[in-house]
C-alpha cells in the first residue's frame, strides 16, 4: 500500500500529471477529423456510454474511498473550504460525461440522417404550468435540502482573529482564484493576476464572435463542433480546473508541491536554481558576461516574444490554420490566434521551467517588466 501511495505521489507531480493529461486529452476530445478517426478506432467514445460512465465513476469512488483511509489525504479533502472543490470535481466529471454522452447519441442519429434527440414537432409544445413549474419546484426542494444538510453537518470555518503580523504558510486565495495563484509559479503577478485574467474574461466573451460554425446549435453534439469543444475543454479543464486542483490539494507550505498522500512538512526544501533566458544565452551558452545594455541583454527574449505574436500568426494562417483563416476573415482570425497563443504561453512556460529551470524569457526588473 505504501509503495502504491508513493507511486501516486510521484505521478501527481505537475510535470508528469500535466503531460499525461495533455497527451490523452487530444485523443479523448479530438479537435480534428484525423484525431477523431483515431479516437473512434481506439473506441474511446465508449467512455460516453452508460458502461463508460459506470467505469469512470467506479474508478473515482474507489480512488476516493481508498484515499480517505490515508491521513494526509483525508486532511486536505475534508478541510471545510475544500469540500466544495471535491464536489465540483465530481460534478464536473459527471456533467462532462452527461453532455458528451448526449452528444455521442446525437452524432449517431445525425449520421443516420435522423434529427437529434432534442428535436420535437414544433407544433407539439408543452405548457409551463404544470410541466415546467413542477420540475422547478423539485429542483428547488432538492437544492434546499442539499444546502441545509451541508450546513448542518459542516461548520463554516473560522480561524483565529485576523493578524497581519502572522502570515500562515501557505496563504491561499479563495479556491476559485487558486488557478491564478498557481499561475504565479510560472508568471509574474502582472501577468498571472492582471493580464491573463483579463484575457480569460475577454476571451470567453469573444467566443460567440470567433466561432463561425453555425452547426450544432440547440442540441448536444461532438462531431459537428469538435474543434470548438476540444479547445474550450482544453482551456477549462486543463488550464483552469486542473490548476485549481493542484493549487488546492497539492500545494503546501512555501507553495511547494506535495503528493496527495504526502505529509505537509515545513522543512521540505526544493532547490531553486531558476535562471533567465538572458543568463542562459550569454552566460551558459555563449560564455560571455551579461551585456550592460538592457536591450542587448534582453534581445533574445524580446525577439522571441515579438516573433511569437507577430510572425507566428501569419505563418499559422498560411499553414495549419489555413482553413480557419479563409473561413473566419482576418479580424476574427486575429482575435482567435492571439487568444490561442496567449493561452498556450502557460504550458510553454511550464515546460521551460520544468526542463530548463527558466524563470523569465524577458527579464527587466528595472521596470517590473518580466515575462
Amino acid at each position: 500500500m505504501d509503495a502504491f501511495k508513493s507511486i501516486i505521489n510521484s505521478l501527481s507531480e505537475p510535470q508528469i500529471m500535466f503531460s499525461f493529461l495533455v497527451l490523452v486529452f487530444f485523443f479523448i476530445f479530438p479537435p480534428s477529423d484525423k484525431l477523431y478517426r483515431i479516437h473512434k478506432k481506439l473506441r474511446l467514445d465508449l467512455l460516453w456510454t452508460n458502461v463508460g460512465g459506470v467505469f469512470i465513476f467506479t474508478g473515482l469512488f474507489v480512488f476516493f474511498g481508498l484515499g480517505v483511509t490515508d491521513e494526509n489525504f483525508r486532511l486536505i479533502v475534508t478541510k471545510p473550504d475544500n469540500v466544495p472543490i471535491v464536489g465540483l470535481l465530481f460534478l464536473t466529471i459527471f456533467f462532462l460525461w452527461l453532455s458528451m454522452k448526449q452528444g455521442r447519441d446525437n452524432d449517431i442519429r445525425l449520421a443516420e440522417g435522423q434529427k437529434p434527440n432534442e428535436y420535437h414537432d414544433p407544433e407539439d409544445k408543452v405548457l409551463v404550468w404544470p410541466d415546467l413549474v413542477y420540475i422547478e419546484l423539485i429542483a428547488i426542494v432538492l437544492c434546499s435540502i442539499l444546502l441545509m444538510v451541508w450546513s448542518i453537518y459542516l461548520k463554516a470555518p473560522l480561524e483565529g482573529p485576523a493578524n497581519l503580523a502572522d502570515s500562515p504558510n501557505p496563504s491561499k486565495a479563495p479556491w476559485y482564484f487558486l488557478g491564478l495563484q498557481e499561475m504565479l509559479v510560472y508568471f509574474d503577478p502582472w501577468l498571472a493576476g492582471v493580464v491573463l485574467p483579463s484575457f480569460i474574461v475577454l476571451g470567453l466573451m469573444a467566443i460567440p464572435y470567433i466561432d463561425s460554425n453555425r452547426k450544432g446549435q440547440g442540441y448536444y453534439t461532438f462531431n459537428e463542433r469538435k474543434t470548438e469543444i476540444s479547445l474550450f475543454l482544453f482551456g477549462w479543464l486543463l488550464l483552469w480546473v486542473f490548476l485549481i486542483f493542484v493549487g488546492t490539494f497539492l500545494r503546501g507550505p512555501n507553495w511547494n508541491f506535495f503528493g496527495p498522500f504526502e505529509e505537509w512538512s515545513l522543512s521540505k526544501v526544493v532547490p531553486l536554481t531558476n535562471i533567465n533566458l538572458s543568463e542562459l544565452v550569454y552566460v551558459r551558452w555563449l560564455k560571455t558576461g551579461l551585456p550592460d545594455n538592457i536591450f542587448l541583454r534582453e534581445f533574445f527574449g524580446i525577439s522571441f516574444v515579438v516573433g511569437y505574436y507577430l510572425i507566428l500568426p501569419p505563418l499559422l494562417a498560411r499553414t495549419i490554420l489555413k482553413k480557419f483563416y479563409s473561413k473566419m476573415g482576418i479580424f476574427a482570425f486575429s482575435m482567435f490566434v492571439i487568444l490561442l497563443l496567449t493561452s498556450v504561453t502557460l504550458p510553454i512556460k511550464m515546460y521551460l521551467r520544468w526542463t530548463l529551470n527558466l524563470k523569465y524569457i524577458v527579464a527587466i526588473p528595472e521596470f517590473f517588466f518580466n515575462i
Partner: protein
Amino acid sequence: MADPKKKTMFQKIAESQFLKSIFRTGIPHTRRQRMMAVLNNVFLHLHPVRLPKHAVKVKYTWCMGGLSFFVFLVLTVTGILLMFYYRPTVEYAYGDIIDLAEQVPLGIMREIHRWGAHLMIITVWLHMFRVFMTGSYKPPREFNWVIGVLLLVLTMLLSFTGYLLPWDQLAIWAITVGSNMARATPFLGHEGPGAALLAIGDINLVHAASDVRFALLGGRFVGEATLLRFYVLHCIGFPFIIMIFMVVHFWRIRKDGGISGPT
C-alpha cells in the same frame, strides 16, 4: 362514491373570493386556465406560456441557470439576516461571527450563506458549461453569452468580497494574497510595468498610496477601511449590479427566441 358536483373543502377554499383575488384563475384545470396561471402571475411570467418539449427536460438544461438564480435568492435572504448581527468594524466583526454561531437561535445562517456562495459559483460554472456544450451562444444569443460572462465575474467578485468579512486569519490572508496582484497592474499598480512612466518630473504619480490596490483596499494594507469597502461592495454594490445584469439576461433569453433548440 362522492357526488362529483359536491365540492371538497380544498376546492371551496381555493375558489373563495379571497384566494381568487390573489391568484385570479383559481386552480388551473383547463388548458386555458393553465395558460392564464402563467400569464397572470408576475413571477411565473418570466416564462413563456408554452415551451418546446426538450426545453423542460432536466437532461437538456440541467436546471443550472434556474438554480443559480434560486441560490442567489437564498443568499440574498440569508445575507439580510446576517446583516442584522454583523458590524463591519475591526473591533466587532470577528466577535459577531462567533456570536452568530453561539448566541443566535438556529445558528446555521452563516453556514447556509457560505456554502450557498460556493454552490452558486459551481452552478454558474456548470450553467456556462451547459450553454457551451449545446452551442447556445451562437447567433442570435451572442450578446446574452457576454452578459453571462459578466454575471460569472460578478458572482466571483461577490464571493471574494464576502470572504473578508469574518475577519479571521483565513479571510485577511486570502484577500491579501488576492489583492497583492493588483500591485502589479500595468501602469496602475506601483509595482506594475509602466507605472514609473506616469510621472511629472521626479514625482511619481503611481506609488503605494495611490495605485489601484490602494483604491481597492482603502490603504496600504488590508485594514479597517478595506473591511468597510468590501462590506459595502458585498452587501450593496455588487448585488445591485448583478441584479441589473440578471434582469437583462432573463429579458434577453425571451427576446432571443426563448431557449435554444434544434431546428
